[in-house]
């Protein structure tokens, strides 16, 4: 009994501590200026107001950046998942010349920290005049060697006989892929899609460099640059943080099942 009390007690305390920074900033976002600014603010707004939220969305056009983020994240997710699905399947289940070398190349690519590549990437996109275009964010993010490795590992676990049977029935490789392979790896693809979406949504350094034009910025980049200008307005910035965080939390809570599975599958596949 004492053990159970201890377990639930310490877990609850840890959970509250973990959630506190998120809840606190949300609470401040709904406070009026005097409450926010006069010493340490109360935990809860006494006279809740939407003033800050309206301000950050209207005056700072957060909705616009939200849309940019959405376009980039959706396109990245679709492209990256499709490309990785094809490659992961082929590397695991289709025999062809050069397969081993390509697997090694993919593994090598996993080992290169993507953020170390921003200088030449900037130069390349500048050469082809794609700085300030969505493509500058979508294409590099779609080159996702980690996803390929994970799908490859997942597909190796599927008996080759099932695929051979499909091919024997006269299905072409594309048909086999779409009608047999994709349904088989659907849970894995869904999981990776959610993972890719979140990573893309929260990406910061490269989007900040590639989107020099303010109107093309993604949400975190816009939030950081609003922050550089308005850090002294706690209510406004708290509202900005809240508006940025809430959609991701909602998506996570809704897609938890896939998401957590992908995290687990991703690491245990090694």
């Amino acid at each position, binding site marked *: 009994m004492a053990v159970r009390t201890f377990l639930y007690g310490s877990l609850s305390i840890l959970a509250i501590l973990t959630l506190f*920074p998120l809840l606190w900033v949300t609470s401040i976002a709904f406070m009026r200026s005097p409450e926010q600014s006069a010493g340490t603010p109360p935990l809860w707004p006494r006279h809740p107001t939407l003033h800050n939220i309206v301000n950050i969305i209207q005056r700072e056009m957060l909705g616009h950046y939200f849309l940019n983020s959405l376009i980039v994240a959706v396109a990245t997710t679709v492209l990256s998942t499709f490309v990785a699905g094809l490659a992961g399947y082929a590397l695991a289940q289709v025999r062809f010349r050069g397969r081993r070398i390509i697997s090694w190349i993919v593994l090598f690519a996993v080992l*290169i920290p993507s953020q170390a590549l*921003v*200088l030449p990437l900037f130069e390349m996109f500048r050469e082809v005049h794609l700085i300030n275009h969505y493509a500058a964010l979508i294409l590099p993010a779609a080159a996702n060697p980690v996803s390929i490795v994970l799908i490859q590992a997942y597909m190796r676990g599927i008996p080759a006989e099932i695929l051979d049977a499909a091919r024997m029935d006269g299905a072409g490789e594309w048909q086999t892929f779409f009608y047999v392979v994709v349904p088989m790896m659907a849970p894995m693809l869904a999981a990776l899609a959610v993972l890719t979406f979140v990573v893309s949504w929260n990406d910061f350094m490269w989007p900040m460099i590639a989107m020099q034009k303010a109107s093309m910025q993604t949400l*975190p980049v816009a939030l950081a640059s609003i922050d550089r200008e308005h850090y002294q307005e706690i209510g406004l910035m708290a509202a900005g943080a809240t508006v940025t965080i809430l959609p991701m939390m909602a998506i996570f809570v809704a897609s938890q099942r896939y998401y957590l599975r992908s995290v687990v599958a991703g690491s245990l596949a090694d």
Partner: protein
Amino acid sequence: MKSISGPLFVLPALALIALFVLIPFLGVLGLSMTNFDIYVLASSANLHFIGGANYVHLFHDQAAWQALETTLTVVLAGVPATLALSLICALMIESIAPRWRGLFRTAFFLPVVCSTVAVAISWRYLLNTHYGLINHLLVAVDLPALNWLGSPTLAVIAITVVVVWKGFGYGMIILAAARREIPEELYDIARIEGAGVRQQLLSITVPILAPTLGLLALLDVAGYWQLFAEPYVLTQGGPMGSTMSLLLLMYDRGFRWWRWGVASALAMILTVIMWLFVWLQRHTKTSWREG
């Protein structure tokens, strides 16, 4: 089954990886051996190959050493702390009734999915010297208020705390899953043989989870090694450059001052040290198995 579909299926991925990973990587390597700067931008006639001069320059650059030290500190303090917290939470969650597990998992995992920029803004206010709740609580229990983001030592600690807070939920999920894979019979036998909770932990749970912990350590190292957004928002690298990470320094040199040669050399150093970590992890893993 041999057909052209294999190469065809791999082609898009391979093209993307070649274009956006391999070629840029060679680009970083090449740039790091040139004098690329604002004058080269003005006229490419000014571009020269200068061999290892940028690396020599960095070797004598106190800011580069400080960035290395800061980043290493965050990794060496942050990774063990993250793993410990992940493990403790995972084991506790797996010991409670299944219907409550989801709730706690969600709570611990939420920071992982939130934008670093947004949560860093929240932490900056929490840690504020005069206003922040953390100092308010310290003062309430008669402890001195601390200048969290204004003192070089405390600022590094604060950044590490934020990084750990943001990251531990990930390992918790994975360790909880791995813990579920351990057959309960092992614990039954141990109990019959009279092993206490601590003995069960040390002789069953930890050894079986060791490979997972090793993998998590590697993932965390790779992630923390690329520290950027936290100091960018929380401290802008200050005070006194104490929270300037390697990537933040690279960003400053490259995109604020247009010193691409030196910035690329920093990127190469960052990459090579990360490889060293990977090699180290593989190495210790095999020696464990042999031992």
